[in-house]
């Protein structure tokens, strides 16, 4: 018991005195949150738009201002010809173009169907799809305003979709990404801090010195883990709070549930760090291993960015051993949906299983170094 506290207390003192570790634990989360939070944004705004208005009537100008006022498009150029548009598109000065036909005003007044052309740079398929969606929404809503008095009931389609998106009505990708970011940052700080701290002891020889003392593996592991658990939990809560302040992340569920999910997830991450440290002999190696076993799976296989359901079958199988997968379900349920434990208890169980197994694996490996 005392030895455990001694290991823990020593660890805290060391962290406090080691600017590099402190930096990893405090600065990196903040840095990642800002970097990814602002850069990893699938919403597209300020799309440079060229307009070729062949109509020149109040109706056509209404349509143009509809595009510009939407906030998604910036009027970058007025094109006089198709050649103009082609040139602007080729030089990347614009990413989209709106071509309004000569007879738009007349057709609208006559209650006829009018077609406008939207040209989109498709070199990035994701962006193009999103831009297309924006353009369609704008055209639909403007055409509703253009002729309310002339709407002919018979022409309305018999079935319409009235889409409503729950939990994230504006479909802001930030709300989808920030929970993943929280999982990612928590994983990094927990894995790196424990792995580096043990490997550093190996490098300095203090590990051997401690092993020469009658310190049990359990006391050593718990003593090592507790300080980093506290620090990474504090840092994770900090990241959650910062996400609320900076990215309007809501908190619709219970904090207690969130802390429980976070704790289970962090214990698994700390265990992963300990496991890495039993394999790696140098800090560089530990870092590289951490990237492979912790960061990449959390980034790619957790559903953080790429939905698990659209992965090939065997990759989906792989995701079952990625703790972030379960944590994300719980986190999104709590934070975005305000759902109760009924929605995510299997994921909590999975997190607990992962944490127990990886801790056991790390203990066995640490104990077995005395072969």
């Amino acid at each position, binding site marked *: 018991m*005392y*030895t455990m*506290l*001694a*290991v823990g*207390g*020593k660890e805290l*003192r*060391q962290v406090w*005195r*080691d600017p590099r570790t402190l930096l990893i634990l405090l600065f990196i989360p903040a840095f990642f949150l800002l970097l990814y939070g602002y850069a990893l944004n699938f919403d597209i705004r300020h799309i440079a738009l060229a307009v070729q208005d062949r109509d020149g009537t109040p109706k056509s100008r209404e349509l143009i201002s509809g595009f510009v006022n939407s906030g998604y498009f910036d009027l970058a150029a007025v094109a006089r010809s198709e050649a103009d548009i082609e040139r602007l598109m080729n030089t990347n000065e614009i990413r989209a173009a709106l071509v309004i036909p000569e007879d738009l005003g007349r057709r609208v007044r006559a209650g006829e169907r009018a077609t406008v052309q939207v040209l989109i740079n498709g070199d990035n398929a994701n962006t193009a799809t999103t831009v297309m969606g924006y353009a369609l929404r704008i055209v639909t809503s403007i055409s509703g305003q253009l002729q309310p008095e002339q709407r002919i009931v018979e022409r309305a389609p018999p079935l319409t979709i009235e889409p409503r998106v729950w939990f994230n009505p504006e479909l802001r990708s930030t709300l989808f990404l920030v929970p993943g970011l929280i999982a990612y940052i928590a994983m990094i700080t927990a894995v790196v801090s424990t792995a580096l701290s043990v490997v550093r002891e190996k490098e*300095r*020889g*203090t*590990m*051997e*010195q*401690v*092993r*020469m*003392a*009658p*310190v049990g593996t359990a006391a050593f592991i718990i003593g090592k883990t507790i300080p980093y658990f506290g620090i990474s939990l504090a840092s994770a809560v900090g990241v959650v709070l910062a996400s609320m302040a900076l990215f309007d992340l809501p908190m619709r569920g219970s904090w207690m549930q969130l802390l429980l999910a976070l704790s289970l997830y962090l214990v698994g991450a700390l265990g992963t760090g300990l496991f890495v440290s039993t394999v790696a002999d140098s800090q560089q190696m530990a870092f590289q291993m951490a990237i492979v076993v912790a960061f990449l799976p959390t980034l790619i296989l957790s559903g953080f960015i790429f939905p698990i359901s659209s992965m090939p079958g065997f990759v989906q199988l792989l995701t079952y051993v990625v703790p972030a997968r379960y944590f994300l379900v719980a986190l999104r349920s709590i934070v975005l949906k305000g759902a109760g434990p009924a929605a995510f208890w299997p994921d909590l169980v999975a997190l607990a299983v992962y944490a127990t197994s990886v801790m056991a694996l790390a203990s066995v490996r640490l104990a077995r170094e*005395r*072969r």
Partner: protein
Amino acid sequence: MDAIAVRDLTRKFGDFIAVDRISFDVKQGEIFGFLGSNGAGKSTTIRMLCGLLAPTSGSATVGGVDIRRDPEGVKRRIGYMSQRFSLYEQLTVNQNITFYGVIYGLGGAALDERRRYVLDLGRLGGLENVRARDLAGGWRQRLALGCAILHEPSIIFLDEPTGGVDPLSRRQFWRLIDDLSAAGTTILVTTHYLDEAEHCHRLALIHAGRLAAIGTSAELREVFSGRPVLEVQASQPVEVMRALETFEDVEKTSLFGMSVHAVLSAPDVDPAGLADRLRLLGLEVTSIERVHPSLEDVFLDVVERAGAQG
């Protein structure tokens, strides 16, 4: 009873035999030196004796405790200090002492008393709040030793304890070791500084995992009884060495800096005659004299013969 008793201790790593059936005893209060080149098996032996590594076969007791049956019991009875002076760099002298004290189960007044002892022993008074990484080599070494003996072990293992330390600090360190030994502490020390080996009461030479020789330094030198050792000073030592090797009455030679040591095959060879024969070959000889064989001579001789045996 002997402080350390080792019988046929063997450790294999896969097919590689790091330690091969080593047997020896160390008496209480003895300073026992373990000599050997890097990779000879010294550290592996120490790690087994400290309960850190399980032997493949053979047995050993340390402080009366069987290293196979109760490695944790061994750990409580011994102190260990490695060549790396394993201290926590970010922690102060005091914090290092506290940490190592607590993991050995010390606390309260007992820890305070041992802290004073260690600070005093290592001449670390006034440096209590200095971080370990800011200490100079000699002080780090003495702090590491202090941390290793906080729990008053009756047996101390020192694994190349004087690496990277200046000669004055080395001398101070050996004085500490002598004091501990005089107080009844058994010390097993590995080194490859042969001059340091002279501090040891008895020595074991270990080569390729085997015990090649064991005894006091005087006993070890007896391998040269009947085989006098000559030291030849010459301006061209390499040429002199080559010439000497062609002489029938010279068993072998080795280079010691700018001088040549020649082991003679018989006790009655005349050094002056050898010098004349060298001069006949056109080689200049500054001096030639019979010398007391150094431990280095012994070491090279033992290693060579162990190698010849296979």
